[in-house]
């Protein structure tokens, strides 16, 4: 892996956006409605770094990973692979797939059950032009790299003979088979048994450090993001609401949504405050496209939040938040003036 240096930007998204047109309320002939699944997201995946994307279901984190792997084309924004602009409208190329690989959530559903494990590992190798003679050696290598030893014992088995943790390692091995630079892992541990989750997390971290791999780790578990990530990004309703390059996003979150997320995690160290967040009732309006998307559920929402998109404000080194609470006086008054006119 001599051609990349640690910290080099491998895959960069600028203003990446995906809108879906869906049928509106009122039946087949109703006017179409736009769902803004991902809106204006900037992410840089660097060699040897793990970026964690945290969010609830529907926050757009999986759509983001599908766009980065070019399975879903974006409706806006740009994608750069090693600094070169990618034509996102064109179909995904084999060369792109060799650099960027995706690992999915459900290990049982993503390995073909009627073929032996060898089939899953050799397919990407053959598709990407590994000579037939080298396929077996290479398959052994990748299985060893995910600590499945001896490899032959696993290659000869069917997926149903393996546990969830082992299958997820097979999945990761398949992703690594073609030596990609970027690994996108969409909730890789959420379907696994509790006792084997850490093993898979540690594996991802080791792969990242040893091979200078750039990893995007998608999760709904903010504690696991704190464990593995160099940068943590919190998404809500398609937008990045807070991001930080250290653990300050969990130790001192500034955005009300991140605060809600962190305080919702079961925490036996802090039993006293355990039932305080109940005041934040589940709002029937989940988000608002006019102003801040979190404003219908936000316990600290102000007038300005409902009608105006909040700006992104730097709150510390590498730590920023998209919230009116942290916006400067100038930014707030600019909005009040423009609404008055």
């Amino acid at each position, binding site marked *: 892996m001599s051609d990349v240096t640690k910290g080099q930007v491998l895959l960069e998204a600028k203003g990446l956006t995906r809108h879906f047109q869906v049928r509106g309320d009122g039946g087949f002939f109703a006017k179409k409605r736009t769902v803004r699944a991902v809106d204006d997201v900037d992410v840089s995946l660097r060699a040897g770094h793990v970026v964690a994307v945290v969010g609830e279901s529907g926050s757009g984190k999986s759509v983001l990973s599908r766009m980065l792997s070019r399975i879903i084309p974006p409706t806006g924004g740009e994608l750069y692979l090693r600094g070169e602009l990618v034509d996102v409208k064109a179909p995904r190329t084999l060369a792109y797939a060799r650099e960027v690989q995706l690992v999915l959530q459900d290990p049982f559903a993503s390995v073909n059950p009627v073929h032996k494990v060898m089939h899953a590992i050799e397919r990407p190798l053959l598709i990407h032009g590994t000579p037939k003679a080298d396929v077996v050696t290479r398959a052994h290598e990748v299985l060893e790299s995910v600590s499945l030893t001896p490899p032959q014992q696993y290659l000869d088995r069917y997926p149903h003979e393996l546990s969830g943790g082992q299958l997820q390692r097979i999945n990761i091995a398949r992703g690594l088979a073609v030596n990609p630079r970027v690994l996108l892992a969409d909730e890789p541990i959420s379907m696994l048994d509790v*006792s084997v989750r850490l093993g898979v997390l540690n594996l991802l971290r080791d792969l990242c450090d040893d091979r200078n791999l750039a990893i995007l780790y998608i999760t*709904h578990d903010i*504690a696991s993001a704190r464990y593995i990530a160099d940068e943590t990004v919190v998404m809500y309703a398609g937008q990045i609401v807070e991001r930080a390059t250290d653990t300050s996003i969990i130790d001192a979150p500034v955005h009300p949504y991140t605060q809600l997320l962190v305080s919702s995690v079961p925490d036996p160290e802090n039993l006293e405050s*355990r039932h305080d967040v109940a005041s934040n009732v589940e709002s029937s309006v989940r988000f608002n496209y006019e102003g801040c998307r979190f404003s219908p559920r936000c316990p600290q929402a102000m007038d300005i939040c409902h009608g105006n998109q909040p700006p992104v404000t730097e709150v510390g080194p590498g730590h920023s938040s998209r919230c009116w609470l942290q916006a400067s006086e100038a930014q707030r008054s600019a909005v009040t003036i423009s609404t008055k006119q």
Partner: protein
Amino acid sequence: MTTEQQNILEVKDFSVSYGYGDSAVRAVSDVNFTLGTGHVLGVAGESGSGKSTLVYGLTRLLRAPGVISGGDVVFNIPTDDGVKEFDMLAASEEDMRSVRWSHISIVLQSALSALNPLRRIGREFDEVLRAHDKKRNKAERAARAAELLDMVGLDADRLDRFPHELSGGQRQRVMIAMALALEPELVIMDEPTTALDVVTQREIVSELYELRKKLGFAMIFITHDLSLLVELADEIMVMYAGHIVERAVATDLYNTPRHPYTLGLMNSFPPLHGERKVLTGIPGSPPDLKALPTGCTFSPRCPYAMDICRQQVPPLSTLDDTGRLVACWLHEPSVGAAVPVELSKKNVSTKGGVA
């Protein structure tokens, strides 16, 4: 309730197998516990530990090839004049029907598959109320359904909705409201929040906490998330491969775990606070019930395993005066093993003795 210490559920040597004869797999082995009226028992363990099988067995909801292979389960139904002992395993299916839902109800993990997708929510409520309470008329049943939804923080207009029109959290609230419809004395929750987001989980757990304070039902709460149990449960039972490996007061279990598996389970969750350091979790894979190791079932994965662990099954014995039970040779005085420091921490909490 006149007697404070009344047990609502008494389980003795309860075992469940899947299959018959030589090929039978023991999913639950000789489980003993009692549950006090209004108490919360948390059951923790991984998939395959037998935690769900245990409650399906207790409520006789097991499907073939699941068979109850032994034990006694007594459910004490409070009546106007004291309690009536109800033998759950000897009762006829008809008697069981009268006890289920009115006295014991169960909330399952997946609310989407538990609700009929072709029926409006209101009809599900109506059916439950009609089947168990013949006295109410239709309007009264609808009013009761609205009252129940209100109790879990949902608007009455949800009664006209179909399950697919509700979010996952709302569906799970509907399930909880339905479970409480007949004011049971015992509610069993089988991973009710596992499929939900952490924020929704928090809302539902807080709601359960309030409802229990108000209605006073006892609860068996099953989950793999130990830290969630510490918040909710009075006592926690940790299961591994069908056996209880440790049972203790919730905070004691969390602050001073004694069984290596409990410790491993706790270390499998990255913490929210403190220094970032590499955790190891538990090596190896969860056990295959078809090919269990001899001796302690956890011994192949246990970092402290000794020779005796691989030969003999450790008994579940009382460890201290808090009534803590542990099945581990490390803590057996007869073996005289040196207990590692992480499994012999002194209890800093105020209640309970120093171990």
